[in-house]
């Protein structure tokens, strides 16, 4: 089936630009690439049917240069723009500008992007739709108010500054006798840092898992719930490193409740196109965190287990067509894991690296998919995200998927910059990861353990 788009401009770079290019070409839709001066030799430029340089290296002047991007679309006759992820993907104003120029934005409506982009609005909409959110208070005016909430929700609780950020004005409180002191110190810290001492309380989930649900909806009212992904293996900065689907050690009851909630949420937002609802899971409970109104980096694990092409569906939806699946057509099969190969040094707090790639040997074989813009001699410019490649392993079950991934990572050679490959092999062969169901504190604990071991070895 051919999607009714005439030409698609891909407003992105790297592996996701190639990913979108592939979906377009399979649907026989010509593509237009945009690129910065630093990316002139990049693979996404070579693979597209046309390409426009839209600015110099720094993203603010190229991949975020809205006038030049829209102008490139108009000149080339593109009738749709795929934003990929990052850059302009969740920019409601950009989606509006596309619409105003008669260009289809391949994603949800500007209203949905705006509503989900604002944390307070998103939370309010979800509460109205009876989606569970982390229990919390408004601004607390008195110790009594805080005490009443803590009693209701149960300790531990977290005090957060309303103007907050960077952990300032934040306090974890584990017992009632600590509450008063913690409130006053959090408030004065927030006042000093932000000039606003107002604080609120939230239930503290100590060891949550990051569980997210992939959704896909068309303009004809069809909503697909494409299962969950577990993205609990996160760097200390909360960036995901390893993702998998389905989530290990989740009960049938949990899943049913999660999918029902996801469906309610999609309807409450009148959501169209691909999106992801992120939750914090705590035992049998789960709480809405945020909705990402775009295709995500880790979408291939869902594609692997459902044997579906999410980007092609995005193109169809943007053209006003019906999704090519119904919920009853979808059966998850096996287990899939994705590893992000980043130009980063895990031993040095994941500091990003830039340089020229000398040797590039990518893995293959049964059950392995590699999405990358790498090639030998390619340069890694310092301006952008440090992700070089995504390796996805699909197996009959989780053990086979892990074994395939370890094998694939051992085949992978990227010389010229430090990468996350050796560290990811360590994680995948760690018994705690192998057991499944780690929480988001797992990776920081592993790193701390390693640096302790190293320190011991040195002394």
């Amino acid at each position, binding site marked *: 089936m051919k999607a009714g788009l005439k030409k698609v401009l891909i407003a992105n770079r790297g592996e996701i630009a190639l990913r979108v290019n592939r979906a377009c070409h399979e649907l026989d839709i010509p593509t237009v690439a945009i690129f910065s*001066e630093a990316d002139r030799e990049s693979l996404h430029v070579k693979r597209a049917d046309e390409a426009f*340089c*839209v600015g110099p290296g720094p993203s603010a002047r190229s991949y975020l240069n809205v*006038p*030049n991007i829209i*102008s490139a679309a*108009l000149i*080339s006759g593109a009738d749709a723009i795929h934003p990929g992820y990052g850059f302009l993907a969740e920019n409601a104003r950009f989606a509006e500008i596309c619409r105003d*120029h008669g260009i289809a934005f391949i994603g949800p409506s500007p209203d949905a992007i705006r509503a989900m982009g604002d944390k307070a609005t998103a939370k309010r909409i979800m509460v109205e739709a009876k989606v569970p959110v982390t229990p919390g208070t408004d601004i607390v005016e008195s110790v009594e108010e805080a005490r009443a909430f803590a009693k209701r929700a149960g300790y531990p609780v977290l005090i957060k500054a309303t103007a907050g950020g960077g952990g300032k004005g934040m306090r974890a409180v584990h017992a009632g006798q600590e509450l008063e002191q913690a409130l006053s110190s959090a408030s004065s810290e927030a006042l000093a840092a932000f000039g606003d001492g107002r604080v609120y309380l939230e239930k503290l989930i100590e060891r949550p898992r990051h569980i997210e649900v992939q959704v896909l909806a068309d303009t004809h009212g069809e909503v697909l719930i494409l299962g969950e992904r577990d993205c609990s293996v996160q760097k200390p900065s909360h960036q995901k490193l390893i993702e998998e689907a389905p989530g290990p050690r989740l009960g049938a009851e949990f899943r049913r409740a999660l999918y029902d909630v996801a469906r309610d949420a999609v309807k409450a937002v009148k959501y169209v196109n691909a999106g992801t609802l992120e939750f914090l899971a705590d035992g049998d409970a789960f709480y809405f965190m945020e909705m990402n109104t775009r295709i995500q980096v880790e979408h291939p694990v869902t594609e692997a287990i459902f044997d579906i092409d999410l980007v092609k569906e995005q193109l169809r939806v943007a053209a006003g067509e019906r999704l090519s699946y119904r919920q009853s057509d979808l059966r998850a099969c096996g287990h899939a894991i994705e590893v992000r190969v980043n130009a980063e040094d895990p031993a040095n707090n994941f500091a990003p690296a830039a340089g020229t790639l000398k040797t590039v040997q990518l893995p293959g074989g049964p059950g392995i998919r590699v999405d990358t813009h790498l090639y030998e001699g390619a340069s890694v410019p310092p301006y952008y995200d440090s992700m070089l490649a995504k390796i996805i392993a699909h197996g009959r079950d989780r053990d086979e998927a892990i074994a395939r991934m370890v094998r694939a990572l051992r085949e992978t050679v990227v010389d010229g910059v430090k990468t996350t490959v050796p560290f990811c092999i360590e994680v995948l062969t760690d018994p705690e990861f192998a057991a499944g169901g780690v929480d988001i504190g797992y990776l920081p604990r592993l790193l701390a353990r390693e640096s302790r071991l190293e320190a011991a070895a040195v002394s």
Partner: protein
Amino acid sequence: MQNDERESDVRGEIERLVRPLLQTFDEGDLVRLAVDEEEFALEVVRRNRPRAVTTGSEGMTGIAAADLAGGAPQAPERPMELVTSDVVGVFRGSRPAVVIGERVAASRELGYVEALGIRNPVRAGRGGAIAAIMVEEGEPVEYGQPLFGFEGGE
């Protein structure tokens, strides 16, 4: 009234263009200057300076790049200074079109790049003698695309 106005505009324009050209004549480089008031066109022919023919083709861009790199065997003593587009749009040249060898002032508008209905003027940079014209009328141009080359070091 309108006609008179236009006529005086044209005369003013020609005056403005011809004066620096006459100056250039004095420097002895130019051999012929034709002024066509009717078509509002100027033709300038320059003596005997070997230079690639400029058609705005890709080939020319290549030569310009080689000039810049300084590696071309017949590279000029000084590299060309390029006027590039800083927007993505469609190039429209000013009338009369400039020609190779013509000396233009820094403020001179050589054309504009139309993007999203806005005319983004292309000016002559530091000015000087035009050494290459690398863009055609109505051609889509991208960011950083060389449009005109000037003799360097003016």
